[in-house]
């Protein structure tokens, strides 16, 4: 269970802290912030409500960074950022967003992030626990070409679920015409925001960057919709796991390459061997070798038989008894929409095929599970 011994006084608060407390949020330490893990409805109801109606998440702890090209040309910022990520950033059209990873010299992942092209600059959203290091990394490597502008005075809220579009449309007329991964400045409830059609739940939805001073007003306005419920970090985790999405520091980290992490789809052909701008990012040799020759292990989805959840850290075995561990679960829990346990973890490539039977050690017992396709619950992105 979560430690309650962390010094509450050292925790940072998002601009929505008072609102969380007034809504009955159960506050816990997360990435240095005092954040709501759940509200009175509880994780299960919050999860199911997001899938059937709409959920509102405070993700203001995440880092928001503007990369402003010194030349004035966004293409120069894109070329500069390509030094640090294996993605094609140049090809992100104005008003579009793409998923990316900062890699290290060993081919591991320093953080995963979203990169949007706002026409005259790039807008990045990075993980809370990594944001200080990410900023230092950007400053150390891109200061020749870009001004790295930490947007610490902005909050970030995510509105997710089938009713997200209609709820946001009342405050932002352009919202319904946006497609999955569209991103740009929009006025929401009269407030100048950055809006993207994206999220971390597998549902259609939006992420809205709002000036800190206006965050509570915007959030309260969204919550006036009876179909919009506040959602804590507990359901955020079960939703993203059902969607097969990685949690940095758990499913991906400095010891996993994008290929091992089954994130090949996120690395465009232009940056791979034979591409127009192949390589040129940290760890390119290792990562491209994984593309060309395969990696010896791979992140896979796992479906335990029965009802018992198999949690992070559980060792995986090829057989029901004996033998050495072949891998480890990196995220695991119970999927409320799946109505079954689910997990992801790393296994040797030769044991990663769909339907492969494996075992996880839980409380001294070997529980059978099967390598399964992700997402576990079908996503509903509006493409």
């Amino acid at each position: 269970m979560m430690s309650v011994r962390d010094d509450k006084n050292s925790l940072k608060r998002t601009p929505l802290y008072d609102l969380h407390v007034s809504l009955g949020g159960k506050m816990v330490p997360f990435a240095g912030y005092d954040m709501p893990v759940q509200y009175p409805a509880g994780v299960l109801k919050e999860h199911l409500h997001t899938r059937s109606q709409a959920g509102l998440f405070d993700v203001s702890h995440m880092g928001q960074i503007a990369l402003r090209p010194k030349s004035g040309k966004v293409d120069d910022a894109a070329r500069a950022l390509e030094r640090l990520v294996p993605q094609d950033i140049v090809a992100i059209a104005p008003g579009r967003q793409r998923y990316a990873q900062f890699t290290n010299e060993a081919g591991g992942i320093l953080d995963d992030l979203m990169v949007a092209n706002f026409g005259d600059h790039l807008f990045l959203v990075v993980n809370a626990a990594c944001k200080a290091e990410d900023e230092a990394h950007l400053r150390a490597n891109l200061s020749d070409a870009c001004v790295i502008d930490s947007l610490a005075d902005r909050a970030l809220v995510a509105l997710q679920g089938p009713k997200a579009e209609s709820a946001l449309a009342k405050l932002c007329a352009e919202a319904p015409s946006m497609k999955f991964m569209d991103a740009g400045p929009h006025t929401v409830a009269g407030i100048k925001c950055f809006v993207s059609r994206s999220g971390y739940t597998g549902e259609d939805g939006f992420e809205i960057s709002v000036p800190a001073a206006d965050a509570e007003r915007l959030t309260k306005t969204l919550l006036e919709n009876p179909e919009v419920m506040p959602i804590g970090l507990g359901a955020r985790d079960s939703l993203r796991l059902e969607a097969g999405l990685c949690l940095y520091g758990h499913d991906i980290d400095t010891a996993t390459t994008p290929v091992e992490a089954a994130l090949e789809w996120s690395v465009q052909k232009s940056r791979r061997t034979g591409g127009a701008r192949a390589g040129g990012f940290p760890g390119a040799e290792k990562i491209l070798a994984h593309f060309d020759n395969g990696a010896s292990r791979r992140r896979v989805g796992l479906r335990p038989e029965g009802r018992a959840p198999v949690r992070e850290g559980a060792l995986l075995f090829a057989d029901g008894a004996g033998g050495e561990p072949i891998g480890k679960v990196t995220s695991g829990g119970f999927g409320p929409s799946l109505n079954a346990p689910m997990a992801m973890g790393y296994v040797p490539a030769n044991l990663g095929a769909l339907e492969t039977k494996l075992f996880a050690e839980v409380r001294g017992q070997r529980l059978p599970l099967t390598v399964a396709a992700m997402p576990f619950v079908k996503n509903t992105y509006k493409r």
Partner: protein
Amino acid sequence: MTTTLYTSDHEWLAIDGDVATVGITDYAQSQLGDVVFVELPKVGRTLKKAEAAAVVESVKAASDVYAPISGEVLEINDALAAEPALVNSDAQAAAWFFKIRIADKSELGGLMDEAAYKAHTA
């Protein structure tokens, strides 16, 4: 006539002669959140006081339930396998976990009555 006693780990025991029915308290279920799986001891197993006897899994986390007293497991509540959420809706009655034959009545001495437990969770 049964007497209900409580542990500081938030279990309840309904004592009826030399048999105790054991479950977790309403306070415990409210702290755990939505229960999705309960693992119970095998009937016939002899539990020693304070050893892990059962596991309650919520969406968030797994929590051990420790044997509040020593004794043989006589019966388990099969209803919890089909409907783990009973733990949330009726923790102190329908969602009992197991029945145990009390091996040593002196172990009951260390348990709390309802008033003491209320003070403990206040």
